[in-house]
């Protein structure tokens, strides 16, 4: 890995790329939001209420046969999917259908799936609880973003906070994009993925901003802002890439070896972390440049903060 043991610091022009990165990210975010408005989120039982059954059928029946059999026996709507294994199925239906007679419905399901069918997991969530979970999930995300915004505001100053927040929002939307575009089930673990992405993205951004502040203290007005920011990003590049590499590697291992549940949990975090790294380098810092430039403060307010530098 010789590129990581760099004897000299690279000098890529990240700020210069900003039109491209703003453009691509902007389009990405807009399209995700658009599809979100049109199609909504594919909520899981956690947030919508209902019943989910995970069935293992050693006979490995065909999905279509099962679907027809179901529609004959059960009155309401049941959605049936296969999982990665040919003998594993996910059956989902509304709670009212289930409440009528739980034991009967369960044994009917077992019969439909053939000999030796086993219900490996059952989750039944009433509407009260599902509404609460959705509420607390969204509140959690809101407060987390708020807390992190204040944190950066407190540690640096408002331009940094704003730039970091935009990058944060961008990353969170990217993670939600997985659910919106990929139609992956949006359950409570999705909220966890969004929060972890937020934490990680802030992490990355703080490291770069720390270095910006340090360099301001060191070079002051003698270096133009664009060069200063570029230098800061380039100096921290090897750290940013390496950390992302190790965390992503750990997550990839989880994704491939951890089994279905862990994989479904790791995928959104994987996406979040990758996008988070990208946004800290290519979005947050250019945004900071644009904000400072637009308000014309290089050498003004920003310099006063260098008192806080290490």
């Amino acid at each position, binding site marked *: *890995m010789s590129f990581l*043991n760099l*004897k*000299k610091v690279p000098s890529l022009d990240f700020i210069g790329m900003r039109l491209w990165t703003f453009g691509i990210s902007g389009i990405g975010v807009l399209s995700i939001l658009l599809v979100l408005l049109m199609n909504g989120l594919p909520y899981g039982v956690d947030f919508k209420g209902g019943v989910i059954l995970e069935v*293992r059928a050693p006979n490995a029946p065909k999905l279509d046969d099962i679907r027809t059999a179901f529609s004959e026996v059960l009155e309401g709507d049941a959605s049936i999917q296969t999982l990665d294994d040919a003998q594993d199925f996910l059956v989902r239906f509304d709670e009212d259908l289930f409440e009528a007679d739980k034991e009967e419905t369960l044994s009917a399901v077992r019969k439909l799936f053939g000999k030796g069918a*086993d219900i*490996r*997991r*059952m*989750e*039944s*969530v*009433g509407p*009260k*609880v599902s509404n609460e*979970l959705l509420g*607390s999930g969204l*509140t*959690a995300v809101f*407060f*987390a973003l708020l*807390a*992190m915004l204040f*944190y950066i505001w407190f*540690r640096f100053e408002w331009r940094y906070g704003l730039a970091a927040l935009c990058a944060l929002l961008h990353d969170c939307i990217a993670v939600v994009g997985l659910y919106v575009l990929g139609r992956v089930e949006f359950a*409570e*673990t999705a*909220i*966890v993925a969004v*929060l*972890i992405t*937020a*934490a*990680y993205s*802030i*992490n990355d951004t*703080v*490291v770069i901003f*720390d270095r910006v502040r340090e360099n301001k203290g060191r070079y002051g007005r003698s270096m133009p802002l664009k060069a200063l920011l570029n230098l800061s990003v380039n*100096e921290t590049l*090897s*750290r940013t890439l*390496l950390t992302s590499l*190790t*965390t*992503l*590697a*750990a*997550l990839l*291992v*989880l994704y491939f*070896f*951890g*089994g279905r*549940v*862990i994989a479904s*949990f*790791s995928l959104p*975090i994987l996406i979040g972390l990758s996008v988070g790294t990208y946004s800290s380098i290519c979005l947050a810092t250019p945004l900071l440049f644009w904000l400072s430039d637009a308000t014309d403060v290089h050498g003004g307010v920003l310099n006063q903060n260098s008192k806080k530098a*290490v």
Partner: protein
Amino acid sequence: MIKKNQLFLLALTICGVLLSLPALMGPGRALRYFPGWWQGPQLVFGLDLQGGAHLLLEVDKTQMMADHYDLLAGSLRKALRKKGCRYANVRAAESGIKFELVDEGSADHAYDAVRSLDSELVITRNGKSMRVALPEEAVLSLLASAQEKSMETIRRRVDESGTKEPLIQTQGRDRIVLQVPGADSPERVKELVGRTARLSFQLVKNVLALDEAQSFVPNPSEEILFPVPSSRSDSANEDNIAYVVDREVLVSGSMLVDAQPSFDQYNQPQVSFKLNGLGAELFGAVTQKNTGRPFAIVLDSEVISAPRINEPILGGQGVISGRFSIQEAQDLSLLMRSGALPAPLTVLEERVIGPGLGADSIQKGTMATAVAIVVVVAIMFAAYHLFGTFASIALIVNFVLLLGAMAYLGATLTLPGIAGIALTLGMAVDANVLINERIKEEMRAGRSLIAALDMGYQRAMTTIVDSNLTTLIGAFILYVFGSGPVRGFAVTLSIGILISMFTAVLLSRAMAFAWIRYKRPKVLWI
């Protein structure tokens, strides 16, 4: 760089690791490899890993208040009569009791009557109509005690059913969480927990055939109750009747002291019960006054049995025979022993994980974590060589201490928690990356070896603390707003990060400096 500090650190670490090792092995294997005195608390697995049932129950406040006012209405009638107050149209609902005064002048007596029942009752009057209800605080206080009592009753029932280590907790103002690990038949647990099991002895006034019962209107002091459908095939005929019983409860289930399943002279299952002093007295009086008449044993508004009183029963003991199967007799005595739920419970949420799925997840999760550690170690070595090795050792120690800490703290390991461990490990490495990068920079800037090391660790500290702090904020919020498995993730992540601040910084630093002093190298392999 003082020797004493380093020694202390090393000793602390070794202690921690040694204490944590049994937890690492898992409950079964630990006993085989480690002697008794070395054992420590084991990791607690969440339901999603060990399989089991999770129920979220809620006290039915509406029904609870309806029952409360119903009971109160009976006492109110008596109290009003005592004060010489004539009343009409006493109606109890879940919001309170309404009644009408025949004579407006007796309003004061009415107030007295109500206050004599319960001084907290609020009375509103509109001409002849009176309304009586409890204020909100009193209702909430009733709810709280109902929640508490429900929890205890559930605990008794679940304990008796022989489940090991159930988790029963209150949640919020009116909810109860019940977790039964490794449950083979969660349906039975649900049934045991779901029945209110209110037992009462009431006098039977009349027995009607089913079709007669459809059109029969009982007078206000009576009610129509139906027999419990029997699972036994030999008693189909007896299901087609209805009982007209007195509303008044002669003996209630709260007066039971014991109930056990037994067999009658025909070897049919039955339930023998024993009443307490008050119950025995009441029962004696009732049986003396009503010898020769039938009385109904009612469970949750269904008649289990309606025997005739052959003779006065003064000993407070009796037998309920009622076409039970053995299982039913056992369940009934269990319910009677544990007492009635103060109010019906509704199931808000129910999750059952089969043991197969749980074991699968543990196995795959363990392997994935092991491979992840190997991969991360490899990357660190390739990037930083010797210092990468220091970081890797710190990482492994971190992992062991994390599991040990979780075991000692009694924190629950859930499936997301396993992912949390892997995430923690990835982030723990970050601290070392920051440090090593700084060291490289300082060396590039021309500093001496030791100065570079020193400055590297120092300068990186603020950034490390910053980044860990933000992640801890995220984990904290997750803990506050999340459910069980998510909380497991938050706890695992937090403990992991806190430990990593120790291992990644202090431990690797100690190793690095020890190495320098021992080897005195000219060049740093970094």
